[in-house]
């Protein structure tokens, strides 16, 4: 094996509230160190950009050190540095990009500025080996909800084609907002998932966004979760007004079912329409147990294979950035220049900063 086949890559991720540093060799995960500032944001009910940026600065060097210790590698042995340069919170991204440049500069190694969304797809290679290309990726988290047709994960020749996206809230955002309504802690995803296990998913018939025939004409592969969130809020308020207790488990289960149903239905429709037989699900919401189960169940009926990385790799982390960087090196893509910017609104089609 040459270095190019199995490059040793360190990846840095700071697009939101996790400071992630991962190290991979080829498709092998060696270290995935994550420092989270989520506790500091909890009392605000969402991520405060300035708090996140401050935490990234404090966590950066210790997290790099921890990743190297875990992987048992010296920084000098690393072949390349990869970093999320967008999309995400501008100030948060900048801390990671500056640290990555400092590493590349002092080590004399190339730097690859990569797209956060593509990294969520690439991470699956660490779990299930080379990504089938084409594959259909459903990316769902607090910041994104997208359906992507992936023919080349490095983005070469239009390798990532966005088929659909949310037109309002991200799926994970809906989980956070509904959790708040139900008095569950932030971040809402895991708490809703847990509460839903005790509830009945058909107890309340919440709406499925963009699923009417007319919506499907214009937004066949797009998502909308803001109407669902409002419907849950109205239902809970009506209950409270009438003085009846709110059945938290049933509301959580029915809401979760509405989200997962529409995500899976549209993902499988997109895969079918593009003639793709592999569905990859990534992003923080991919850790949801119901989403995984529903996707497996319905996809197997259609002969579609489902790949979902383990929950720890679905949330934001540095390993996913390293995984994409490793593929960039293996495929001989040109590194990014040292003046690469942080781009908070980077489109998903731009996978590598040129």
């Amino acid at each position, binding site marked *: 094996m040459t270095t190019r086949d199995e490059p040793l890559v360190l990846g840095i991720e700071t697009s939101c509230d996790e400071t992630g540093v991962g190290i991979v060799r080829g498709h092998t995960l060696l270290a995935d160190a994550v420092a989270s500032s989520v506790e500091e944001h909890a009392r*605000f009910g969402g991520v*405060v*950009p*300035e*708090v996140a*940026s*401050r935490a*990234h*600065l404090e966590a*950066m*060097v210790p997290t*790099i*050190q921890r990743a190297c210790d875990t992987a048992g590698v010296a*920084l000098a042995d690393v072949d390349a540095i990869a970093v999320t340069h967008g999309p995400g919170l*501008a*100030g948060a991204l*900048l*801390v990671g*990009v*500056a*640290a990555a*440049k*400092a*590493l*590349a*500069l*002092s*080590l*004399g190694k190339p730097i690859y500025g990569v797209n956060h969304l593509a990294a969520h797809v690439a991470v699956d290679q660490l779990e299930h080996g080379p990504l089938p290309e084409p594959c259909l990726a459903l990316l769902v988290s607090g910041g994104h909800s997208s359906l992507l047709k992936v023919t080349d994960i490095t983005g070469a020749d239009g390798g990532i084609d966005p088929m659909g996206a949310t037109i309002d809230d991200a799926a994970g955002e809906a989980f956070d907002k509904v959790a708040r309504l139900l008095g569950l802690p932030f971040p809402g995803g895991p708490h809703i998932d847990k509460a839903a296990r005790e509830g009945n998913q058909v107890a309340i018939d919440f709406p499925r966004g963009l699923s009417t025939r007319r919506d499907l004409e214009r937004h066949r592969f797009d998502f909308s979760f803001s109407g669902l969130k409002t419907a849950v809020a109205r239902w809970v308020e009506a209950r409270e007004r009438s003085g009846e207790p709110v059945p938290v488990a049933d509301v959580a289960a029915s809401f979760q079912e509405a989200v997962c149903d529409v995500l899976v239905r549209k993902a499988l429709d997109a895969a079918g329409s593009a003639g793709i037989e592999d569905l990859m699900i990534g992003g923080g919401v991919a850790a949801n147990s119901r989403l995984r189960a529903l996707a497996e169940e319905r996809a197997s009926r259609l002969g579609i294979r489902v790949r979902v990385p383990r929950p720890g790799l679905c949330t934001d982390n540095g390993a996913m950035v390293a995984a994409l960087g490793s593929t960039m090196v293996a495929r001989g893509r040109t590194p990014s220049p*040292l*003046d*690469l*910017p*942080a781009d908070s609104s980077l489109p998903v089609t731009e996978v590598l900063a040129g």
Partner: protein
Amino acid sequence: MLLAFDTASSTVTVALHDGTEVVAVATSAQGMKHGEQLAPLIEQVLAEAGAQPGDLTGIAVGVGPGPFTGLRVGLVTARTMAHVLAVPVHGVCSLDALALEAVETGAVAGPFVVASDARRKEVYLASYDARGVRLDEPVVDKPAVLATSGPVVGEGARLYPEAFPDARGPERPDAAWLARGVVAGRFTILGSEPLYLRRPDAVASVR
């Protein structure tokens, strides 16, 4: 070989000092964009002096006070480079570098203050004696609250002439003076903690 830089103003300034004198300097071509400009400017001063990163024996960095986003670019760069190269970081209050330059270039003769732009119609300010030794911790407040008729060094004086009529000397930190001051032992050396002077809660409520 000491690498020095400051990102606490809208300008990125980088210098390299060989222990005897400043051997290379570079200043950003455009305001802001610290994250894009700092690393290439460091690469540039090293190349100009024919030096390698491995030749560095220390990193001097302005720790603010200054606008947070740019400040963090400088500090995370200093910390990360120092970690890789196993060299110390010499943190210096960014106002101190301005004070040293003002004293050494003769812009001031007696006691004075340094005032920099803190945005949101405020300034960062600290007081100095005639030798450029800081007398108090920097503060952030409205120019009218901190107004003085005495000599004022730094961009704050140019921005708020009604509060600071006697503007003197340099406007923004210059890494060449940061480097000279560290080599000559003229500064109180701090760690690499940023001098934010404002709580993040306040920032969140303004957004």
